[in-house]
C-alpha cells in the first residue's frame, strides 16, 4: 500500500539558518503519529512545509502520490490536508454552529468566488455536516454559544472540528492539549482520537506532553536541531537514550511501562 504522505530529503533554510534538513518520512494511511522535539527543533517548519505555508528549499512532498511540494496552501487544503492550531483559531463573535457551518460550507463550495455568492451559508447540506461534526466531537450542547465565551477545552474541540468537517484525509494537530488542564488532557485527546479514527483520518500531532504521546501515538517522530533523530513506535523511541537526553528527559519511563 503506498503511503498517504511521502517526504523525501526535505530541507528548509532561511538564508544561512537551516531550519530543517534531511527529512525522510513515509506515512501509511490512517496512522497516528506523534511529533516531538524542543521548540525550534524543526517540527513547526516541517508542518508548515506540508501545509504549504513554507516552500522547501530542497526535497519533495507527495500526498496520495501527487507532488505537492511548493503548492499554495489553499490548494493543499482543497486536496485534503487540514490543520488545527495551538491557540484555537475560531470566529469569536459567531456561534459554535455558525463556526462549523462556515467551515462546512467552505469545504463543500463549488464555483470559486462567484459560487460563494450563490451558495447560502446555512444550506441543509452544510448544516447537516456541521451538526454531525459537532456531535462527533461531543460539543453539540454548545451549538448556540458564541465562540468567545467557550471554555478552553471546548474551544479546542471546535477548532479541531472545523478542520475536520470537510473530511480531510490528513490532519495536522498543533499541540492539541496545550493550554488544557492536566485533568482534561486525556479526555480531550480521547474524544479527538475517537472522532478522527471514525473518519479514517491520518493524523500527525505535535505534542510536548510525553504521556499523551505515549498513550495515543502509534508512531513517534522525534525532531532535534532540524532533523529527525528517531522514528518508530513510542515504546521504542521514547526509551532511546538519545531521545531521552535531548528531548524527553532521562527520568521519564517509556509510556508502555508506566501505564500497565
Amino acid at each position, binding site marked *: 500500500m503506498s503511503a498517504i504522505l511521502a517526504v523525501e530529503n526535505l530541507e528548509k533554510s532561511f538564508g544561512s539558518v537551516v531550519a530543517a534538513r534531511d527529512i525522510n518520512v513515509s506515512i501509511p494511511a490512517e496512522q497516528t503519529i506523534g511529533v516531538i522535539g524542543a521548540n525550534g527543533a524543526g517540527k513547526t517548519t516541517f508542518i508548515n512545509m506540508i*501545509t504549504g505555508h513554507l516552500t522547501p528549499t530542497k526535497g519533495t512532498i507527495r500526498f496520495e502520490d501527487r507532488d505537492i511540494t511548493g503548492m499554495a*496552501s*489553499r490548494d493543499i*487544503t*482543497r486536496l485534503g490536508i487540514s*490543520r488545527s*492550531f495551538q491557540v484555537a*483559531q*475560531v*470566529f*469569536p*463573535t*459567531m456561534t459554535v454552529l*455558525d463556526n462549523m*457551518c*462556515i*467551515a462546512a*460550507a*467552505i*469545504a463543500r*463550495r463549488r464555483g470559486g*468566488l*462567484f459560487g*460563494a*455568492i*450563490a*451558495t*447560502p*451559508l*446555512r444550506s441543509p447540506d452544510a448544516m447537516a455536516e456541521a451538526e454531525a461534526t459537532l456531535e462527533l466531537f461531543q460539543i453539540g450542547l454548545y451549538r448556540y454559544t458564541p465562540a468567545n465565551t467557550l471554555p478552553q477545552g471546548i474551544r479546542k474541540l471546535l477548532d479541531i472540528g*472545523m478542520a475536520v468537517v*470537510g473530511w480531510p484525509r490528513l490532519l495536522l494537530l498543533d499541540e492539541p492539549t496545550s493550554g488544557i488542564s492536566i485533568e482534561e488532557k486525556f479526555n480531550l485527546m480521547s474524544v479527538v482520537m475517537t472522532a478522527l479514527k471514525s473518519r479514517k483520518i491520518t493524523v500527525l500531532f505535535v505534542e510536548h506532553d510525553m504521556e499523551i504521546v505515549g498513550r495515543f501515538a502509534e508512531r513517534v517522530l522525534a525532531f532535534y536541531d532540524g532533523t529527525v533523530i528517531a522514528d518508530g513506535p513510542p515504546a521504542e523511541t521514547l526509551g532511546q537514550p538519545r531521545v531521552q537526553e535531548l528531548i524527553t528527559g532521562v527520568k521519564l519511563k517509556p509510556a508502555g511501562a508506566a501505564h500497565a
Partner: protein
Amino acid sequence: MFLIAAAAAPALPDWIVSLATIAFANALVVLGLIVMWRAGLVSFGQALYYCIGAYTVALVARRTGFTDAIGLIILGGMAAGLVAAVVGFLLARYREIFFAMLSLALSMILYGVLVKSESLGSTDGFSVSPPTFLGYAPHGDALGRALYWLTLGFGAIAAVFVGGYFRSLAGSLATAIRDNEIRVEFLGVSVTGIVHLKVIVSGVLGGLGGALAALAIGHVDPNMAYWTTSGSFVFVTILAGAGSIAAAFVGSLCFEALRSLAADVMPDLWQMTLGTALLLTILFLPEGLGSVVARLRRRGGAAT
C-alpha cells in the same frame, strides 16, 4: 418598508418626494459601505464610486444624447463596478486604517483629476439633462415622481440582492474575515479574493446610488468625490448601524431630513450638529440606531 414608501407617495408633497429620492439614492451607497463594514473594513472613499456613477450618467447623456434613466443608471453602476474591480486588486490587500486611507486617497485622486479638467467643468461641474423613461419624458413634478419610483425600484432590488448576499457564504465570510482572517485562509479561502468581490459589490452599489443622485439633483460636480462626501456616508452608517439593510434606508432618510432641517434652522452649525450626533452615537450607541430597534424587537418578542 418599501411598500409603505410606495403607497405614501401620491399623498406626499413634492419636497418630501425629492428629499426621499436623494436619501434613497444615498442609501444605496451606504449599503455598499455596509457590505465592506461587515468585513471590518471602513471605506473612506465611497465617494469614488458615487462620483463615477454620477459623472457617467451626466457625460453619457451629454455626449451621446442617450437619456433613458434606467439605462443610464445601469451604466453608472457598471462603470463604478469596473473601477472597483480594478482598484480592488490593490484595496483587497489592506486592512483597518490602511484600507481606509487608501480608499480615501483613491477618491481624492479622482477629485484632483476632476477639479483640474476644464472639459469636465472643473469645480463647477455641469448639469445633467433630464432623463427619459423608456420613451416617456416627464417634466416638473411628474419628473420628480418618476425619479422617486425609479429610486424605490432600484432600492428594492438592491435590498433583495444584498439580503441574499448576506445570507450567502460570501456574505457570511465577511464576519468570519473580521473575526479571524487567518482561519479563513487556513480553511482554504482566498481572503483577498473575497474582499475583492466585496469591493466590487460595494462599488456597483455606490455607482448606482451616484447615478440616481445625479438624475435627482440634476447636477454633478467634483465635490461628489471629496473626502467629506465619503465622510457623510460613513456618518450615516454609524448612525444607522451596519446591522441591517433597512437601517441604510431609514438612516439615510433621517440624515437628509436632518440636513434639510439644519439648513433652515441653523445653517452655520450643520457641521457641529453632525459632529455632535456622531460623537454621541459612537459613545452611547455604538451599534447605531438600528440596534435600538433590534433590541426593542427582541424584548417585544420575548415578552409574548
